[in-house]
């Protein structure tokens, strides 16, 4: 019979058991892990995080709960990861914005406030125009902008988005003012594409994966991709350099990290599990299916890459007048 005393002793037993199983004694991980995603459920970042979480679960033998903490252009979620208790039980996805948001004043956070486990994705920005646009190559487009600076409007999302920096950087690399194709702020990459099709703007900087459906529907046409080499799956799209001679590449990226101060054992296990997840066939199929680019950097390389990206982005944002 369940008396009050029985209940109390049951509680005591549970309490004892959980102290005995504290992380100091048991092998990491011995309880579920939280994975914070700074972007909304259902978006691209969320989808990548969820598949990685499901694959890492298998490696670690503990469930990983994906939690979306959105807001502040990613600042809220990134803060939740960096500010979490560094016990290895709260980790998260970090995205390219971690190297821009402190420049634009959304947050104080920098990439050095995280311990990265690895990078899994890399999506170059591209130059895409309406299907019936007169220019055939990105070189012709740049010439058109040069002839009438300010006439051709660009978009691809909010101010400071990947495509914004990508297009402004392209203009600068071509020897023009960064705002020669003025940026029209839209609330998402999807609305920017609608705007492009409707004739509201002349060019968008979204990635090839994002514009793929409209390209296949014959509504838009990618001119070039801002990458060093052509992308697998998009072999007929030239790079900016081969099409115009302008040396410029720019991309967004995603990786996984935890707060500074985690135990070494946790970092090692999480990094190994992430690398295994990255190398799985399931992940490769998923990324190909969604049109996302794959790129692996281990924790140390990813950290170094982010420091470098931070400096580059800072310079561009200052040029654009977006940095504070």
């Amino acid at each position, binding site marked *: 019979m369940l008396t009050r005393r029985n209940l109390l002793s049951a509680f005591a037993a549970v309490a004892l058991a959980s102290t005995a199983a504290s992380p100091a004694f048991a092998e990491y991980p011995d309880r579920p892990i939280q994975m914070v995603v700074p972007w909304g459920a259902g978006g691209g970042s969320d989808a990548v995080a969820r598949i990685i979480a499901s694959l890492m679960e298998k490696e670690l033998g503990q469930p990983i709960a994906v939690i979306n903490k959105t*807001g502040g252009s990613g600042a809220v979620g990134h803060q939740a990861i960096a500010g979490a208790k560094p016990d290895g039980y709260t980790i998260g996805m970090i995205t390219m914005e971690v190297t821009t948001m402190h420049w634009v004043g*959304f947050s104080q956070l920098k990439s050095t406030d995280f311990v990265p486990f690895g990078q899994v994705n890399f999506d170059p920005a591209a130059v895409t125009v309406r299907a019936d646009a007169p220019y055939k190559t990105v070189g012709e487009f740049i010439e058109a902008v040069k002839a009438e600076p300010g006439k051709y409007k660009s978009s691809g999302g909010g101010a400071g988005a990947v495509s914004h920096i990508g297009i402004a950087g392209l203009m600068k690399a071509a020897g023009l003012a960064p705002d020669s194709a003025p940026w029209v702020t839209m609330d998402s990459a999807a609305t920017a594409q609608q705007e492009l099709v409707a*004739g509201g703007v002349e060019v968008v900087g979204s990635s090839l994966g994002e514009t793929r459906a409209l390209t296949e529907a014959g509504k838009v046409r990618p001119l070039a991709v801002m990458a060093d080499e052509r992308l697998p799956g998009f072999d007929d799209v030239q790079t900016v350099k081969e099409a115009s001679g302008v040396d410029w590449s720019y991309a967004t990226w995603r990786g996984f990290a935890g707060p500074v101060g985690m135990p070494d054992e946790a970092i090692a296990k999480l990094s190994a599990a992430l690398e295994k997840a990255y190398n799985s066939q399931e992940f490769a199929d998923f990324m190909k299916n969604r049109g996302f680019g794959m790129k692996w950097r281990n924790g140390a390389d990813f950290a170094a890459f982010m420091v470098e990206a931070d400096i580059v982005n800072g310079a561009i944002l200052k040029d654009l007048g977006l940095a504070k």
Partner: protein
Amino acid sequence: MLDAYLLAFEMVFNPYVLGVMLLSGVYGLVIGCIPGLSATMAIALLVPLTFFMPPIPAIAAIVTTSAMAIFSGDIPGCLLRIPGTPASAAYVDEAHQMNVKGHPERALGIGLVFSVIGGLFGALVLMLAAPALADFALHFSSVEFFWLVLLGLGGAVFIGARRPVKAVLMLLVGLSIALVGMQNPAGLPRFTFGSVDLLSGFSLIPVMVGMFAVSEVLRSIIRPEAVRAPNVGGIDGIFRGMWGLAKKYPWPLARGSVLGTIIGALPGAGADIAAWMSYAMSKRFSKEPEKFGTGHPEGLVEAGASNNSALGGTWIPALVFGIPGDSITAIAIGVLYMKNLNPGPTIFIHAPQNVYAIFLIFLLANLLMIPLGWAIIKTARHVLKVPRRVLMPIILLFAMVGAYAINNNLFDVLIMLAFGLFGFFLEENEFPVAPIILGIVLGPMLENNFVASMIKADGSFIGFIDRPIAAVLAALTIAIVLWSVVSAFRRKGEEAAEGHVSEQL
């Protein structure tokens, strides 16, 4: 297109989706049957659950619940003379009179059968109109969207509302709430008072759950309504004579379905307004208007079909433009965004199979209504006996858990409770809350499109009217506002001349 439909079939006809539809059907019928609990509230409480589902079952849950709840609201209307949802309010007397005359099965049968027919009609219009409209809407830039949003907001407060001044006021409250946070074109924090929680603004779901569920809980505490158990025996022969009615009243049936779909498609007006207008229309065009209000089937046929067909209609602007037709689709749009099914003309290109799956769900939900509706009519007596003091705490609990689950954030629970109190005071003073929801949903869209249009036109206002579609939409918007203002003044003038001022504005 055929491939996409086959894919859609696969997505809908699997045990998981069908199971979700069955459960949400029962849930919608029960909530709709209980007086005071509206279809909107049923959906608001459901959203946190859909969070854990893939996109298609999530949408299936919402569509099925709303269709069932709107029909089910007819049941207490007939048995108790209390409409289960506002959508049944228009013809509650008529249905109750039929019950008094000893024919509850006839009133409920009409409710069920003609709800299904109206619902199927609305779904078919959605299937045919939405893709065609989407093709056209690909030509819409930020300027056209700006006018469309303004037209929707104007239409909602000037056409849909019974008290336009209060509705305008509430719309402005909603637009102001939408200002909070940094989800604006400049990405600058506004009205956040340094709070990290307010950076992303007020989430729609906690606000809605507060306004529609918590306020209802408060009302039931302050005014405990003793719901009597209806004294009817077993209700048999629900489907008897329905074929005869359909043959006798083909015009009212067609008129109700068409008008309902059109009203549903207008932003801001949904099933409840459709039912009121259709009932009035039925009486006006009837050969025997004197029989209305005495338990006459004609108005029930027309209005019963109308409120369910409105449901399909509300999804047309929701899917094609991302502009909600009523407060249920306002929530549904939020769910679509969360599931990465961003509504707008391009969804028909990006993911046509998802759109077709939604169409199929509409058809299926309405067919599912026949067996499930029959079952709820049979058991309605027992459902109506569930005591309020048991029901309301459960609803509050669901509301709290749901609000927390959206962002795993306690702050959202506080938001929900605060808006619950706010909504309660507004409704007690006869301020409509639906315009607030429209303001919150459409506010960012209005601002984003305005700012984008200004940037594109280098700051010139000419950019707002120099494209043909934009000019037409602009003229329409201005005409609606002018017409409402002029007619309001004229009415006031007439009333003053007659020496009394109506309180019923």
